[in-house]
């Protein structure tokens, strides 16, 4: 079984709730359990916040396109923006053993996405940045 749905929405922080509702609905359809659903919600929230803040450099500067696909393995979410590209390789993961003073330097968002999702991959074409994330369905215990 496969199915997919898409959402095009303005890059505004207040739209994060609608974006979450959209992916939650499809995460549920994909029969993800509560933990997996929360992982998807956090990662998508994070990705879209980054797009607004970093790719567009602020609110209301461009749209975000989301696509949810039901796969046999679980749920795939694709998020596209048309702003500034970046090099994810250059973003260092935070040092979880660092003393408190060194915390908060950034990189926490991408790190969490990678921790929470099973696959996270960025691809950049001129004028179009694409992020694909996969969350697998864990068989009921």
């Amino acid at each position, binding site marked *: 079984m496969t199915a997919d749905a898409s959402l095009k929405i303005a890059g505004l922080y207040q739209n994060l709730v609608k974006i979450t509702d959209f992916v939650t609905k499809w995460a549920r359809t994909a029969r993800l359990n*509560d933990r997996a659903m929360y992982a998807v919600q956090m990662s998508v929230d994070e990705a879209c916040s980054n797009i607004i803040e970093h790719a567009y450099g602020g609110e209301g500067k461009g749209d975000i396109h989301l696509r949810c696909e039901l796969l046999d393995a679980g749920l795939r979410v694709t998020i596209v923006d048309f702003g500034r590209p970046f090099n994810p390789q250059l973003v260092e993961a935070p040092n979880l053993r660092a003393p408190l003073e060194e915390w908060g330097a950034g990189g926490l*968002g991408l*790190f969490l996405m990678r921790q*929470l999702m099973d696959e996270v991959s960025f691809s950049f074409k001129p004028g179009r940045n694409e992020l694909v994330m996969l969350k697998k369905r864990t068989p009921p215990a």
Partner: protein
Amino acid sequence: MLEITGQELRRCDLVKVRGRVDSDTAPELGRALHDIIKAGRFKIVLNVSGVSFMSSAGLRQLIDILKTCKRWNRGNLLLAEASPKLYEVLELAGLLSIFSVYKTEAEAVGSF
């Protein structure tokens, strides 16, 4: 929209936040906590039992407040009553090494 309620106790402030803490709402939480800090009070217990969702923007806000509170050993920001989901996120993000998370408000308040 966050619901934030605060209460000044004898040795610390007890703040309760309810709702979704994301990039949109994290600044609200930040302002509420900074107001306490600006008043010269650096011992804060944050009851997060009503937090339905906390993004890394929320976590960043908390780290920022934590650092301000702990400076010169003058205080701390303690979390109380984290849901299992939130606890897992704190764990994944490595934040359990810098945040103290208490099962109940009373234990957190009583630790100051």
